[in-house]
C-alpha cells in the first residue's frame, strides 16, 4: 500500500515563527502536492512538485514556499507564520500523469496547524 506520512498531526506555533511541515511518500511517485483544507472551501492547492527540485505554484502560494531535495520528501515552509495560516494541511502524492492520463492522489493524515 502507498503510504504518505506527515511529520506532525498537531502543531501550535506563534505568529512570526518559521514553520516546517514535512511529508514523505514511499511509492516512488513523481508528483507531490501540498493543500490546505478549510471548512466550506474544500482543498486548495498551495504548491505542486513533479520532480526533484521542480515546483509549481498552486492556487494560494502566498506566504508559503516548498522544498523538494529528494524524490520521496516534500516540505512546506511558512517563512513567518500568521494567524490566517491556521488550517489543516494535507500532503498528497501520485505518479506523473502524462498528457491524456490521470492517477489518483494518495493523501497523508494531515497536520492541524494553529498559529497564535
Amino acid at each position, binding site marked *: 500500500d502507498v503510504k504518505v506520512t506527515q511529520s506532525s498531526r498537531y502543531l501550535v506555533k506563534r505568529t512570526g515563527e518559521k514553520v516546517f511541515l514535512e511529508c514523505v511518500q514511499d511509492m516512488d511517485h513523481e508528483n507531490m502536492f501540498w493543500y490546505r483544507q478549510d471548512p*466550506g472551501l474544500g*482543498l486548495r492547492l498551495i504548491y505542486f512538485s513533479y520532480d526533484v527540485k521542480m515546483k509549481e505554484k498552486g492556487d494560494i502560494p502566498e506566504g508559503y514556499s516548498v522544498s523538494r531535495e529528494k524524490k520521496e520528501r516534500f516540505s512546506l515552509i511558512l517563512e513567518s507564520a500568521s494567524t490566517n495560516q491556521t488550517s489543516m494541511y494535507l500532503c498528497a502524492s501520485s505518479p506523473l*500523469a*502524462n498528457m491524456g492520463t490521470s492517477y489518483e*492522489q494518495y493523501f497523508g493524515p*494531515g497536520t492541524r496547524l494553529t498559529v497564535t
Partner: protein
Amino acid sequence: AQSVTQLDSQVPVFEEAPVELRCNYSSSVSVYLFWYVQYPNQGLQLLLKYLSGSTLVESINGFEAEFNKSQTSFHLRKPSVHISDTAEYFCAVSEADSWGKFQFGAGTQVVVTP
C-alpha cells in the same frame, strides 16, 4: 480554468435511506473525475474514479457515480446508507492537460442518523 461545484454543503440522511451527492464541473477540455471520502481526523481516501470507458463506476462499499458529459456532472449515490458512511465527501476533477493536478469541490458533509 476549471471549477468544481458541490451543491450541498451538508446532507442529513436516515440509516438505510438512499443518498445522492451532487457534483458539477466546468472545463473546456477532457476531464477525469474522482470522489474522495474523509472520515473524522483522517486524510482523504479514494472512493471511486472515472478515467474512461463505462460512465457508471462503482466502489466496493456500495457507492456509485455516473459521468454525464452533457450535463458536466458526476453525482455520487448510495441506495442504502449505514451509520459508518458519516463523513465528508469531496468531488475532484483533473483536466487532461494538467499533469495530474486536481481541483476539489468544497465538500459535502453526510450525517447518517438511526
